[in-house]
């Protein structure tokens, strides 16, 4: 075990090219997914937070429940859609990084929408009277609140990124874990461990944990600094 650990640290320190390639692909896939999910999920959360329409409560419950979607289930659903035997098969996206981005976007979209909905609804409770008094309509109010709660929303986005970076079920199924093409940190750890080949798995595991810790630290610090500076 210690031998594996030392070899792992060696890979890290010398920036082993295979390791770097895998890490960069993981980051690129998860960052893309969180970018798209934020673009779609933040306005969705804001709209639900300030909107009033029939079925709103049901929608909120469903959105909250979807936060707990198991990654393998998401992988299965996206696979069935992208498979050549499926409705979107002719685009040939299956087993490419694009498929992984799609699957992770689907996975974290509910998280971002549900958490932003909560944050903005809490803010709306505080701001509603004042904003209406100033003459802001619902759409204006939603945009205003999106900016005003930006620090909470950043924490939400970081949470989404953390979830995407750590999952293995979805990207394994829709990516196929293809060497040099769709092999990311989590799927490589799974593969190397099953081969009994631990150094690369350990090295990637260390990096993955470091990334998760960094993301959480960033979220915490953002909240603290924002609170102190902006009130």
């Amino acid at each position, binding site marked *: 075990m210690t031998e594996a650990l030392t070899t792992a640290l060696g890979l890290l320190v010398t920036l082993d090219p295979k390791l770097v390639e895998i890490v960069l692909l993981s980051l690129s896939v998860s960052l*893309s997914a969180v970018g798209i999910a934020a673009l779609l999920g933040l306005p969705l959360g804001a709209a639900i937070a300030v909107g009033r329409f029939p079925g709103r409560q049901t929608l909120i419950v469903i959105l909250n429940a979807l936060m707990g979607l198991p990654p393998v289930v998401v992988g299965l659903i996206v696979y069935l859609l992208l498979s050549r035997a499926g409705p979107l098969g002719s685009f040939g996206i299956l087993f490419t*990084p694009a498929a992984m981005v799609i699957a992770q976007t689907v996975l974290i979209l509910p998280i971002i929408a549900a958490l932003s909905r909560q944050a903005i609804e809490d803010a709306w409770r505080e701001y509603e009277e004042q904003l209406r008094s100033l003459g802001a309509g619902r759409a204006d109010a939603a945009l205003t609140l999106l900016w005003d709660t930006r620090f909470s929303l950043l924490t939400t986005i970081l949470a989404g990124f953390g979830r995407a970076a750590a999952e293995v079920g979805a990207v394994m199924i829709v990516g196929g874990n293809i060497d040099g093409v769709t092999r990311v940190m989590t799927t490589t750890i799974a593969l190397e461990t099953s081969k009994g*080949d631990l150094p690369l798995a350990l090295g990637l595991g260390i990096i993955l944990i470091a990334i998760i810790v960094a993301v959480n630290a960033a979220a915490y610090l953002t909240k603290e600094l924002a609170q102190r500076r902006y009130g």
Partner: protein
Amino acid sequence: MDLRKRLLLLAALAAALPAIAQEKFIVVASTTSTEQSGLFGHILPAFQKKTGIQVRVVALGTGQALDLARRGDADVVFVHARSAEQKFLAEGHGVKRFPVMYNDFVLIGPKSDPAKVAGGKDILDALKKIKSASAPFVSRGDRSGTHIAELDLWTLAGIDIAKEKGPWYKDTGQGMGPALNTASAMNGYILSDRGTWISFKNRGDLVIEVEGDARLFNQYGVMLVNPEKHPNVKKDLGQAFVDWVISPEGQKAIAEYKIGGEQLFFPNANQPGA
């Protein structure tokens, strides 16, 4: 839009570009044991250098690989379970089967060898001994080529393993690597392909007990997925791969692949009956 969000969007587009960019590639459905042996890492760069076609290998168990191809999600299948391959052909999913190479299985077991099978040349005899000794035996249980081969050997030994197994027979439902890990952890016997065994690093007390029996030979076949049934199949690129792998050049690349000085796969495309 927040500056941070703008940057994320740019990153998203930048990451997506390589995926959108047009590249010549095919998807080959193969087995985990073949992938993990490292063979593809050795022969595919040579193919890509010659033809410019990138081969993307999706490694699954044999049954799953064939199912993937049945859905049209692969262009070529490269597996080692002849009866399953024939069935695939009969269903019209494949164009033609070409034998490519063979490797062999070996019976792995603990140094302590409770069933006393070490050094034997008869695999059926060894299996009978393991059963009578109720020695721990790990099965892959995952419909893979190796699993099917194992089941066939029990049958040949006159044992109806489904009925006659006891707590000593561990049906794990795992790939070759994880199954070897399990065998190593519990000091049990296991049937493995030689390739995975040679690359396997977590051996513990395990060694090769029985090898060389002709019944342990493991034949690989390659098939182009039928473009008439699956119009999205890249038939020209796929056919190029099939042609190369059975060509003298491809066969030579296969033979040259060694681990620890040992050749793993023996090309036999010139044996049409294989």
